[in-house]
């Protein structure tokens, strides 16, 4: 049995868990390739114009898998924590994908922890039952998958980006010295599928690093700290990713060793139009260097590069005490 997992959206959070789970149940996991122009082109062709870039890209990844696998694992991620959602588009994704021509059957179990955490196991059981009737086996696979996930999250908190953390988990690390001398620390705040996808982020993280900046992301901040900062808001945010980004941004704004914030949002992203505004308002109030990058299929690489360079220059001048900043 071949199960396809698109390298898109919350792949960046949950892939290690899903992979271990399906492999424990004897399936072969097929991951779609790294994002490319071709994959995005497929997404642009089949998704409606109005959806945001990362969702268009996910169409492309799913389509790449469609003819190679028996099932595509595309859970409906309603909610991954108590009283929070991801985004309406995540709620509708399986229905949007199912309609496409020649689509492989989907394993589109509902993951909904809005009420209680134990509801996760319901989804897992249902997904597992596509492969085996053996409840014990599913239960064991579930526990192994959780262990893998926890290990992955720990690596992220150590400051690895998903690509590096996965390499560690899969024993693919080459022992290389740090390629870059660090002179600045920059926080990159954005949805994981935007900032960690090197194609649509135009290699943002690696670029910043090569320009001498160490990159800090929201995934490195422990949940406890995120919650503490998010609790300062007048009303609790009901978006998991929004809360993470906002909490992390506030935390980094408080830290003297972080010199600036790059906020990355997809063009037309609903939640970001709100949380991004809150973050920007805060950064401005604290007079912290802030760069807003909006990604869509027309974003030009050269323009982004210039803006990042200019931003880093500005941060450096500010640190050097140039007046007027």
């Amino acid at each position, binding site marked *: 049995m071949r199960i396809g997992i698109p390298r898109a959206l919350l792949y960046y959070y949950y892939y290690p868990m899903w992979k271990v789970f399906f492999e424990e149940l004897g399936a072969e996991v097929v991951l779609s390739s790294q994002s490319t122009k071709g994959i995005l082109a497929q997404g642009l062709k089949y*998704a*409606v114009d*109005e*959806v945001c870039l990362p969702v268009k890209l996910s169409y492309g990844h799913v389509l790449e898998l469609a003819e190679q696998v028996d099932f595509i694992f595309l859970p*409906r991620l*309603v909610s991954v924590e108590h*009283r*929070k*959602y*991801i*985004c*309406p*588009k995540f*709620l*509708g994704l*399986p*229905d*949007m994908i199912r*309609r496409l021509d020649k689509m492989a059957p989907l394993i589109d179990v*509902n993951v909904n922890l809005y009420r209680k955490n134990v509801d996760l196991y319901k989804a897992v059981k249902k997904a597992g039952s596509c492969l085996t009737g053996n409840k014990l086996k599913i239960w064991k696979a579930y526990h192994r998958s959780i262990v893998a996930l926890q290990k992955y999250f720990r690596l992220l908190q150590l400051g690895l980006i998903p690509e590096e953390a996965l390499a560690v988990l899969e024993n693919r690390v080459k022992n290389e010295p740090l390629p870059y001398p660090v002179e600045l620390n920059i926080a990159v705040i954005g949805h994981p599928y935007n900032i960690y996808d090197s194609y649509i982020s135009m290699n943002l993280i690696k670029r910043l690093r090569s320009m001498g900046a160490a990159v800090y992301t929201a995934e490195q901040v422990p949940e406890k700290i995120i919650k503490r900062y998010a609790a300062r*808001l*007048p*009303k609790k*945010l*009901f*978006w998991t990713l929004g809360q993470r980004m906002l909490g992390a941004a506030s935390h980094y704004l408080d830290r003297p060793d972080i010199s600036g914030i790059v906020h990355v*949002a997809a*063009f*037309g*992203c*609903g*939640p*970001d*139009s*709100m949380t*991004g*505004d*809150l973050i920007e*308002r805060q950064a401005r109030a604290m007079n912290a260097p802030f760069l807003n990058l909006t990604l869509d299929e027309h974003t030009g690489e050269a323009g982004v590069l210039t803006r990042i360079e200019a931003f880093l220059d500005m941060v450096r001048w500010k640190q050097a005490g140039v007046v007027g900043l």
Partner: protein
Amino acid sequence: MRLTFPHMGNLHIPLKAMLQYLGADVVVPPPSSKKTLTLGVKYAPEFACMPFKLNLGNFIEARELGADTVVMAGGCGPCRFGYYAQIEHAILKDIGCDMQLIVLEPPEKHISEFILKVRQIAGTRSWWQVIQAIRFGYQKARAVDLLEIASFKARPRELVPGATELAYRQGLALIDGATSSVELKEANKKALRIISGVTQDHSRPVLKIGLIGEIYTLLEPFSNHNLERRLGSLGVEVDRSIYLSEWVNDHLFLGLIKGLRSKNEACAAAAPYLRHFVGGHGQETIGSAVNYARAGYDGVIQVFPFTCMPEIVAKSVLPGVGGDFGIPFLTLIMDEQSGEAGLLTRLEAFVDLLARRKGIEEVVNR
């Protein structure tokens, strides 16, 4: 304390009625206009959805008229509406328009939660008065809706262009002016009589179109360039997937009043195409498209603001409904730049297509 609230179509009529019944001092913002939108666009985040921008503009304009407190509905996601109030509040503060904020979070389990919240505004009033006020507001909402529905039927059949609109305005004013349940009953009757007094050609063939989509752009004529009126004058009878009173019953009374069309029916009909709620009215949009198709409507038109998430999901699956039922559909996305001329051309082309399918000539350009 002088209260104000955002506009959304005729919402100000029942809301004002309820608040005044409780003795509150109410400032109704000037009707949404280009100026409102310009103000909103100036201060709102660029990618905020249009209702957000218009709300903000309404508040700024109401403040100029002396309002100092905003009453706003809340929500718990996943779509943006639930966080509107807080961000609008922060923006108002930043631009030196500091206003108090009262958020009415929707009840989750029982209507009593809603009553409790309204009482916080009411101050010293008794429970009984609070309940009466809510009831009075609801009665007005229902009266306004019935009048609207009557106007949808009259408009495509009117013999004198504009007669329905005039009658509808008169009717609204009567309902708006009623200060007690007894008066309201009278006003309601009178209003419906005025509408049915519009001379109509009942033998004229009309097309029927169901309007579906996001609640604000459906209910607020300013945000949809008077869609219903335009369709009416093109010889189309419309129905809407959302009416104020139904919304109130579904979301504030949690279905207490029986006999109204409910969101559950719409959501059930959406099942094969969209199997889960997606926030906003996305699932209702799909379910209503199915229901309109089943009821023999000639077409459906989906309306929503630019970047509206639940409706983008709905738009992605709507072709499935269109294909299975053979019902034509048109999607109109409203943003601050969308021009009227382009809209009219698209509407005419769509109506033309429906007329030809049905074999009616002379619907357009009569």
